[in-house]
């Protein structure tokens, strides 16, 4: 049986607007993106050495960010990813919920679809509740965001509240243009590491 989309409140937020609003107050935060559209959502706010754009490793964003968060305890580490990417590494939520890194926040842009491959429905379209999973895993604070007021109300939690913090933002499937940023992992990772540590040598 094909998966059916559950009836839900109308989704109005656009992912690019959401990310722009959140990152407008990033401070010195590191940002780790999930693969796919999240890379370009984050890059559209301005390319930044403190952005780690991931590719290929579906399901890996949260744990990459977790490793950064342990190594950089004084810095906020923010994951911007999609629901499909998060679902592929759903066990990571349990691990992070157990470990409770205070400086880690995960924001899921939930369009209920695999945007990079033709908008096939994800499990969230069928009603899987990521916020409930995060809560049950031990995340100290969570939010389900469906409008601009919700983003504004969550800003302090996303950027400052002792975490781990987890938010789902319901967004439309519409994306923006792809950005011409480097796709070279060696370059992006070393640029990021230097921004984190101040070290040039590897």
């Amino acid at each position: 049986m094909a998966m059916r989309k559950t009836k839900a409140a109308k989704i109005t937020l656009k992912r690019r607007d959401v990310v722009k609003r959140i990152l407008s107050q990033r401070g010195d935060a590191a940002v780790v993106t999930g693969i796919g559209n999240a890379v370009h959502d984050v890059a559209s706010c301005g390319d930044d050495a403190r952005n780690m754009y991931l590719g290929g490793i579906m399901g890996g964003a949260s744990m990459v960010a977790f490793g950064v968060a342990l190594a950089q305890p004084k810095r906020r580490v923010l994951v911007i990813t999609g629901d499909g990417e998060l679902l592929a590494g759903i066990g990571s939520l349990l691990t992070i919920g157990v470990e409770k890194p205070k400086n880690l926040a995960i924001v899921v842009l939930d369009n209920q679809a695999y945007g990079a491959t033709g908008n096939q429905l994800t499990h969230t379209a069928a009603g899987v509740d990521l916020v409930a999973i995060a809560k049950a895993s031990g995340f100290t604070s969570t939010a389900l965001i469906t409008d601009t007021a919700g983003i504004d109300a969550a800003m302090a939690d996303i950027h400052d509240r002792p975490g781990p913090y987890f938010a789902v933002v319901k967004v439309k499937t519409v994306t923006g243009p792809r950005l011409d940023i480097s796709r070279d992992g060696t370059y992006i990772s070393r640029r990021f590491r230097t921004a984190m540590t101040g070290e040039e040598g590897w």
Partner: protein
Amino acid sequence: MVKTKAKTRHWSHDVHSVLKKADVRQVAYVPDGGLAKLIDLCNGDKKMRSVVLTTEEEGIAQMAGAWLGGQRGVFLTQSGGVGNCINMFSMIQECRIPLLAIVSMRGQWGEAYPWQIPMGQSTRAALEAANVIVQPVDRADEIAETVEAAARMAYDGNRAVAVIISQRITKSGGRG
């Protein structure tokens, strides 16, 4: 001359010392019988943050993050977990991130449980297919120096290196 069997300490103590000396700060693992003692030592070390994973690929991503944030890590796994890591190795390879892995073998030396044999026999090939340098060791007294050499190649040589500990040493197996 009477031959006496010298009371030797378990190799895990020496490996733990090597990891400490290398300033390893993050330890990611899925519990395993062959590595149980080493895992206990790491868990008891306040300078190391030991993290239990739900599945092994989480550890590869964490190790990448550790390096990105300026810390060294070690990934501990049973051979069966190596197969779970394959796609996550993409990041290690594409970004040329140092990775030190210690793998304890099943499905290899005298394995009596048939379900362990397929992945055990694929472990080395899987690692090498993902461009991970493999350093096998089949004598207990050579594990620590092999880990030390692997750590140097990983952290200073910027490579992914896995030390594979033979089932001949751990005597794991038989129960499933």
